[in-house]
């Protein structure tokens, strides 16, 4: 659960392992602070998502800094290669489309991305997602609706460009 959620956010196995380790260390160190006001799984999801999103923000900061330091190759072209992500749990016939979808998910706002991952990857209900995100069910519905709308827009642009 922890590894799968982390993997879906950071989209790299090694980074997901690091995040998973950090989550369990955090749980070990702060288990006495768990007040049992929510389910243990809810608490675990919150820590996992927090660590995973922190990791993503750090990665974005590094990329920005590296870009400023100039990563230009020959002919003044940017040579940063982002590998395509293949989630090991996706069926073979859906792998290519899932890879495209995961890439599109990277440009979603944080809250929409979290709601989408919890719903589509972890299979949580709207109620469970609202518990994790500490919000209302209608807010979760709205987040998912906007996430899908944004993804449709990005995917349409992607397939349009592919056609040309």
């Amino acid at each position, binding site marked *: 659960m922890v590894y799968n959620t982390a993997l879906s956010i950071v989209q790299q196995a090694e980074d*997901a392992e690091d995040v998973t380790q950090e989550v369990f260390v955090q749980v070990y160190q702060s288990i006495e602070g768990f007040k049992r006001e929510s389910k243990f799984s809810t608490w675990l999801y919150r820590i996992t998502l927090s660590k995973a999103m922190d990791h993503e923000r750090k990665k974005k900061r590094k990329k920005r800094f590296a870009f400023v330091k100039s990563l230009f190759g020959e002919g003044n072209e940017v040579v940063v290669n982002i590998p395509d992500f293949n989630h090991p*749990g996706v069926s073979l016939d859906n792998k290519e489309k899932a890879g495209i*979808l995961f890439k599109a998910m990277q440009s979603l706002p944080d809250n929409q991305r979290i709601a989408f991952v919890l719903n589509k990857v972890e299979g949580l209900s709207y109620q469970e997602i609202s518990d994790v995100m500490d919000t209302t069910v209608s807010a979760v519905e709205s987040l998912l609706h906007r996430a899908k709308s944004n993804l449709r827009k990005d995917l*349409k642009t992607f397939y349009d460009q592919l056609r040309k």
Partner: protein
Amino acid sequence: MNDIEKRVEETLNSLDGMRRAEANPFLYTRIQARLQQSRSGLERLILMAGKPAFAFLVLLIVLATNIMVMLKGTAEASAVKQEQIQFAVADEYHLDVPALYDYENPEP
């Protein structure tokens, strides 16, 4: 629904029925080893000292101390100078109170 819209919908639904990813079996061993590592008080202090917030706080304290010392020094210096000026004026105009047995400076 045209071809592109169909592909978009298929892509959006590509995660349906997916299984959870399983971590490398060595990850469990790695996590156990990390949890068993005990941190000494000195290690914790060193870790804390490495954080930017701690360095910023130390810098603020040093700057504040420097400013306080400078201000105090300036105040003391001006007080001493003021006193010196007062003595000089008193001496010039013989305004000081003569000692009872001060034969060198008799009263006019």
